């Protein structure tokens, strides 16, 4: 696959300072989820700012979609439309006095017609789950809401790449989970996403590829498992090993038999313990629990309460920003609101059933994840799709395509 963005030997230094970037070469493919990880002052933000032409490197070249980036006004506008940049502090990014005006800022400057502006703003706000906030001034919003507005402002320009500088640094844990969930959702819609962070736990579970930076250089890159298992590199980058890996190493040194890959989620580690070591810790008498999946876009509040009453379940998971808004509106309190699929599989392995309420393509995602898990681990956790009249077994038709698409994205460059 052609790389989407290619950086070759970038050098940059701020006036009167040590080089902020030196010898940076990197290539980014379409549909990747990349996390730039490094300590404070490692050059992450500088590198991100070169991507949309805000910082012009002293040496080296940036190639976007096969063409070198040039720095005249027209080309810059073009590249900034395609590569959207979300600042760390949403107060810096939000310019206009109301949410609607701010999200419309990009589209208006791209000379969309009035109708197109309206449509793109509506879509963007819908995408980040901020409908109904149009006329609110930004100082009335919470940190997480401001971040969503900032992201919507970029989405309204329909970029191919989303670049986010420290997307969770100003948010509380629940707010961070929400934003990362949203980024996953956008990635599923085909956007390439690049974030910078020094939160190793977040990068480890979220990213497809980790790029470790230190003193303006890339010191390592690879899958999260590869990047974080090199202890020397982690030390050099002034980071720490994710708790999950730490636990895994400790279990291993105590004689846990492992054949395969390193764990990335709680689900992985449970699977390794159960599968590779003891067989199953406890197989409940009634076998596996069932995972029910419902598309709330196609339901009303009363439908959902009907279904909840009819279907036996131990917990309710809500996935995606729109589903969360519906849940709040209809007065359901979700038991699980982040890492929903993993947690529901964990529940199912423990003999408990769950209902996942979500929207659109993420229904397929649930089926895909559980199917892959079942195949890889020789299990048969049942997934059912919830519909209004009855629940049906099996896999939605688009599923196979989606599985193939995602496996294509896995190769790195």
């Amino acid at each position, binding site marked *: 696959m052609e790389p989407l963005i290619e950086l070759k030997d970038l050098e940059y230094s701020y006036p009167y300072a040590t080089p902020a970037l030196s010898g940076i070469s990197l290539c980014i493919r379409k549909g990747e989820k990349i996390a730039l990880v490094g300590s404070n002052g490692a050059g992450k933000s500088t590198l991100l700012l070169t991507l949309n032409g805000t910082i012009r490197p002293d040496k080296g070249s940036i190639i976007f979609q096969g063409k070198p980036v040039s720095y005249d006004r027209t080309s810059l506008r073009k590249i900034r439309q395609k590569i959207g940049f979300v600042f760390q502090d949403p107060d810096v990014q*939000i310019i206009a006095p109301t949410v609607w005006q701010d999200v419309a800022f*990009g589209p*208006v400057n791209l000379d969309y017609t009035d109708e197109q502006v309206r449509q793109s703003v509506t879509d963007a706000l819908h995408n980040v789950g901020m409908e109904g906030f149009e006329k609110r001034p930004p100082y009335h919003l919470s940190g997480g809401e401001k971040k969503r507005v900032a992201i919507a402002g970029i989405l309204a320009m329909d970029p191919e790449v989303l670049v986010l500088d420290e997307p969770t640094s100003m948010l509380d844990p629940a707010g961070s989970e929400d934003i990362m969930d949203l980024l996953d959702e956008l990635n599923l819609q085909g956007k390439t996403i690049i974030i910078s962070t020094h939160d190793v736990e977040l990068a480890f579970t979220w990213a497809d590829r980790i790029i470790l930076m230190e003193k303006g250089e890339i010191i390592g890159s690879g899958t999260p498992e590869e990047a974080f298992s090199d202890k020397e590199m982690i030390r050099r980058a002034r980071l720490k090993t994710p708790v999950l890996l730490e636990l895994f190493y400790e279990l291993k040194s105590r004689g846990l038999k492992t054949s395969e890959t390193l764990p990335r989620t709680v689900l992985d580690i449970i699977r390794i313990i159960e599968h590779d070591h003891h067989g199953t810790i406890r197989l409940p008498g009634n076998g596996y629990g069932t995972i029910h999946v419902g598309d709330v876009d196609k339901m009303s509040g009363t439908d959902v309460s009907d279904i909840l009453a009819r279907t036996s379940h131990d917990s309710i998971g809500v996935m995606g920003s729109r589903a969360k808004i519906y849940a709040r509106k209809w007065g359901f309190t979700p038991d699980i609101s982040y890492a929903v699929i993993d947690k529901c599989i964990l529940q199912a392995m423990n003999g408990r059933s769950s209902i996942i309420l979500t929207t659109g393509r993420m229904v397929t995602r649930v089926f895909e994840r559980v199917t892959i898990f079942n195949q890889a681990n020789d299990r048969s956790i049942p997934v059912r799709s919830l519909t209004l009249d009855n629940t049906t077994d099996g896999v939605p038709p688009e599923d196979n395509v989606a599985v193939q698409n995602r496996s294509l994205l896995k190769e790195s460059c």
Partner: protein
Amino acid sequence: MIGHDFLEETAHHNALLQVHPFTKLFLGIGSIILVLLTPNYIVPCFLAMTLSIIIIVLAKINLKFYLKLLGIPLSFAMLSALVIIFLSEGVTEIWSVQLFPWLTLAATSESLNQGLHIFSRIFGGMCALFFISLTTPMTDLFGIMKKLKIPELFIDLSMIIYRYIFIFMEKASQIYLAQKMRLGYTRPGEAVRSYSMLFGSIFITSWDAGEDLINAMDGRCYNGKHAKITSYNPVEWRTLSAVMIYLFIITGMILWTSG
């Protein structure tokens, strides 16, 4: 902690928010113009009363908050009215007092009339102004400005200023608190020094914010345009005609009382 957004905050939650801002502006500005044309104190008082009733009953603004708000300008108005009553010339003396051998304060019926007139005009005008600011958020006014063909540059600047006032206020109150915690305002000399430092930091902050703003606007393909909301609920003819009838009655009262 933060008191600077009280008026805006209230305006964003008032019960007349959905009424077209043009109607509200028409009522507010119309009242101000009529108040300036009144020859005596009866009409402005009537205007002040009716507008206050509209603010409290229709816009559902908290009565206590409104009275507190009104108290600030009215106390000034009261003082100036007193000065006018005692210092203006007049023929028929009503009451007088000799404070010092060289100073006699006297109120005449003419000066009393004039004082009351000025006081009631301020009263009526303030009510009209508060009607606008309590029912129409600033953000609604930007769209109206555009419709009234006020130059874009002016509107864009006022929008950016409006947006940043709140950021700087927040910053200022943070710095102020940080200074106070380290005993910054304990002595008068210290207070002056702290105050100047506060302004220095705000200046640097605003300089940085300006550079960030340029980056943020460039990052979103800025090309000299700002989006404005111009689609409001349609002007309701019933409400607008009610406003017109009200203003007609006031005009009628002015003509009748002066004629």
